[in-house]
């Protein structure tokens, strides 16, 4: 870990100011990803701005008396607080499940909502500074492309980078049409949809998202929930807990009798960003909620997948996970 200057921020604006003032500075939130990468020499900040001492409330209802309106997750809210918040558990249960499917109790007690979105890929070539990796060292090549790519992307990759975004929480947020609130030194507030926020690797895999240096995430906004009654987060992994997803699926159904009036499906472990399964969604809307329809939609979604040498199984696994998440959403309503 390189030496760095540590600053404990006392206000949000002062944190942003400090951040903007030095291109080599970073925000320190839970630190669960940043410190890990600093110890690996992957991240080499000159200055850390600790924002954990700033006051925050994990979850705020956006309702003004109205029954159904959205919520605001504070960027500094801890993952565990968020997952266990009564509003989230009752109205966005798939988000609770997704958070609780990730990492461990200790890590969720440290990890923040903002940091979770910004966590970097777990690609082993990215983590090992002796290996080529375009994301870590642009132009050095992609070690995974011809390497051990079992954990890697099947959608939206480029020959520059085939990494996946490792977050579980972000998958549920993608399904829920969340928006990211960011603030910069000028005091400007931006509200980015997940599509605007996350990126595919393209020619610039070093950029995980479209934030600019100096942007601070202040919160995540969720619209009113239509999926509280029928949703599920399914995660398939190599061991039963404390492991990143091979494939995960957040599914939500809004039903009108047996008919699907609205549906959301997002996938983790398959792309550089949480992957909205739009093909599947489109196929299901208006159809009857049956296992056969779920399977057909899952198959259609995965038909566009392009696997690598070691992750061909993700196609079948993806189909199964989509169908399973939808079936469970229908039956158990999480």
């Amino acid at each position, binding site marked *: *870990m*390189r*030496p760095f200057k540590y600053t404990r921020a006392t206000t949000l604006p002062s944190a942003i100011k400090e951040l903007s003032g030095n291109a080599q500075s970073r925000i320190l939130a839970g630190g669960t990803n940043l410190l890990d990468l600093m*110890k690996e*020499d992957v991240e080499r900040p000159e200055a850390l701005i600790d924002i954990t001492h700033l006051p925050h409330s994990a979850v705020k209802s956006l309702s003004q008396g109205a029954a159904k309106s959205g919520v605001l997750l504070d960027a500094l809210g801890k993952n565990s607080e968020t997952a266990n918040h009564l509003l989230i558990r009752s109205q966005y249960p798939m988000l609770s499940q997704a958070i609780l499917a990730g990492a461990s109790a200790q890590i969720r007690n440290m990890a923040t909502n903002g940091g979770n979105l910004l966590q970097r890929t*777990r690609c*082993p*070539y990215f*983590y*090992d500074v*002796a*290996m080529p990796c375009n994301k870590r060292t642009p132009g050095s090549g992609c*070690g995974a492309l*011809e*390497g*051990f790519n079992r954990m890697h992307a099947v959608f939206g990759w480029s020959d520059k980078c085939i990494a996946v975004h490792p977050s579980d929480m972000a998958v549920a947020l993608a399904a829920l049409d969340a928006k990211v609130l960011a603030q910069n030194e000028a005091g400007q507030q931006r509200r980015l949809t997940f599509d605007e926020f996350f990126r595919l690797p393209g020619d610039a895999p070093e950029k995980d998202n479209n934030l600019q240096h100096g942007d601070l995430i202040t919160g995540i906004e969720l619209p009113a929930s239509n999926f509280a009654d029928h949703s599920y987060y*399914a995660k*398939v*992994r*190599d*061991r*039963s*807990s*404390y*492991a*990143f997803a*091979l494939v995960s699926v957040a599914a939500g159904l809004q039903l009108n009798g047996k008919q699907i009036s609205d549906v959301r499906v997002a996938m983790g472990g398959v792309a550089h960003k949480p992957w909205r399964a739009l093909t599947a969604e489109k196929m299901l809307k208006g159809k009857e909620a049956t296992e056969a329809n779920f399977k057909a939609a899952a198959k259609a979604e995965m038909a566009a997948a392009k696997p690598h040498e070691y992750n061909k*199984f993700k196609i*079948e*696994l993806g189909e*199964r*996970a989509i*169908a*399973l998440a939808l079936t469970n959403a229908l039956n158990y309503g999480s």
Partner: protein
Amino acid sequence: MEANQITGTPLNRIDGLLKVTGKAAYATDYPVKNLAYGYLFKSTVASGTITQIDDAVAKKAPGVITIITHLNAPKLNVKGGLRGGALLQGPEIKFNGQHIGIVVAETFEQARYAARLIKVQYSGDAQAKTDFEKLATQAVPAKEPEVRRGDVDSAMASAAVTVDEVYETPIEHHHPMEPHATIASWEGDKLTLYNSSQIVNGAQTSAAKTLNIAPENVRIITPYIGGGFGSKGGQWANLALAAVAAKMANRPVHLALSRQQMFNSVGLRQHNIQHLKLAATKEGKLLALGHQTTTHTAIDDEYTEPCGDCSKVLYAVPNALINYKVVPMNIIMPTYTRGPGKSTGSFALESAMDELAFKLQMDPIALRLANEPAQDPTTGKPWSSRKLVECLKEGAKAFGWHKRNPQPGKNIQGDYLIGHGVACGSYPARQRDSSAVIKLTNDNGKVQATVELAAADLGTGTYTILAQTAADGLGLPVAQVQIKIGDSDLPPAAGSVGSVGATSYANSVNDACSKITTELMMKSGKQFFVRPTAAQLMASERLSSFETRMDAKPLADADNYSAHSFNANFAEVWVNRHTGMVKVKRFLAVTAAGKILNPKTARSQIIGGNVWGIGMALTEESVIDPRWGNFITRSFADYHVPVNLDVGNLEAIFINEDDKHANKLGVKGIGEVGIVGVAGAIANAIFNATGKRVRELPITPDKLI
């Protein structure tokens, strides 16, 4: 003497209080003054030569005391007994991750940072041997001896039923929770090494020989060991390098491997390709057994995991061929890993037996019972004791085996396919030479004992079983017995490896108790009708102190018998039919391992072995990228050891057994047998659940969809 009062009871661990309060001191927990911190740096190529090391910037980094590479390291004896080379003796690179230097600095943070600043140039060797899949065909016969009787191939050709399959197990790592760590401290010529060591005296002599100093000048202190599983048996370069660093820094040095460095510093369980052949009559009598293993070893040293060991002893079979081929590769030297050979080998053998039973439409337990050998089928020696049949029968009863549906894929509950499997295992029982000193004191009639030997307790329960053995042997309450181990200044003892620890230590302490009692009787000059205890003699003779030393040896005729622990393992798995994720819901291990000194710690040993077996069956796999020869699984997030939720209800049953041919106490050792047969039972249960026979471990979800 009131025999067996405490021995055999489930006494709580006597070191428990220290362990639950954080006071048990492991290697780097000692408050050594003026401590400096070392950090190893490693090669990033698999073979070639170092042409340049640029450490100019690192040398000037704050806090750096010294940087040691092959350019300034002292000459060490590379044949001193440390495993795996990497002693900074030259510029040659033999594997990716070989140590190439150490930074010593004032703080850990400074050492780690400075190590990052060092730039190394290599002249590459395009011929690096890193791709086992490709090199396997070039493997040559290994030193591990071959067993050949009769003719397997002709038996295969004419038999009613045969199985001819290849089973593959990946590289695994020991990964004890305590990474290998040392504090090295010199006082003049005397070197103290606080170092996690399974073989206390072995660590002492190999460190001394490697450093070219007298063993008397080296003291190993290792009262608590954070697990070892074979990787802290033979010691590795880091032990000597810590001493070198302390010498060159002229200060005590703390040198710990990082978890990432654990992947390529302290051996591994090698990738095995096992070719199994079984031939049987229609009635299920085995006619032939072929077990041929192809594996890899270090480029300049050979270790072969003996995968065929269980095949040598488990079943009666007239024709057998058990042998090994090995190919040298540019990766870290393999070494003993919990249940070496038996755990991986039994997976292949017991999977093949299950395949055979299925082909024969025979119950897998009945198949095994039909092939029970009267004596060791390989050596012809009589068994010291063998209760595998009891293991199978008692296990079947306790597990409810009769309820199993022999047709695969038929037991469905909701999202789950349920299956049951059985597999057997064995592990050799051995006693090694081991000494012990007993010191008795008597303070106004209150007699206390101190038992001293350079034994190790890596969580196996050594402290506790020795206190029990000594308490009974001396006629003292266990509270009046103190156990001192884990220090090379104590009388030399066997290592805690290969399941010889408990057997050797307990027998030596027991013998020492007998000896001291006899000596006290002689000293008293009296005649006794009933043999008194040492405690009674100390009191009646009003001796204030007395001590003796025993150099215990195995029984003279121990070699005339074939001595093994045996087990039968029963697994119930639930396979999610959508995701392919497997949960081991129930697992029962029935073990015949001689006399059980403490059922509580013994059960823990078995259960711990079972958890290892679950890891082997379902989660653990290390992968090398042949382009660089480096591990792509390079952290605990990539290399999956089982977590709590991976483990369901585990039950252990011990078969009453007292094996007086094996050794005086009738103890056979349980540290390793607990992992043997586990992966086989789970794989067989998965077949029963799903109808899928997976012959390549670990059985991850992708293999079941």
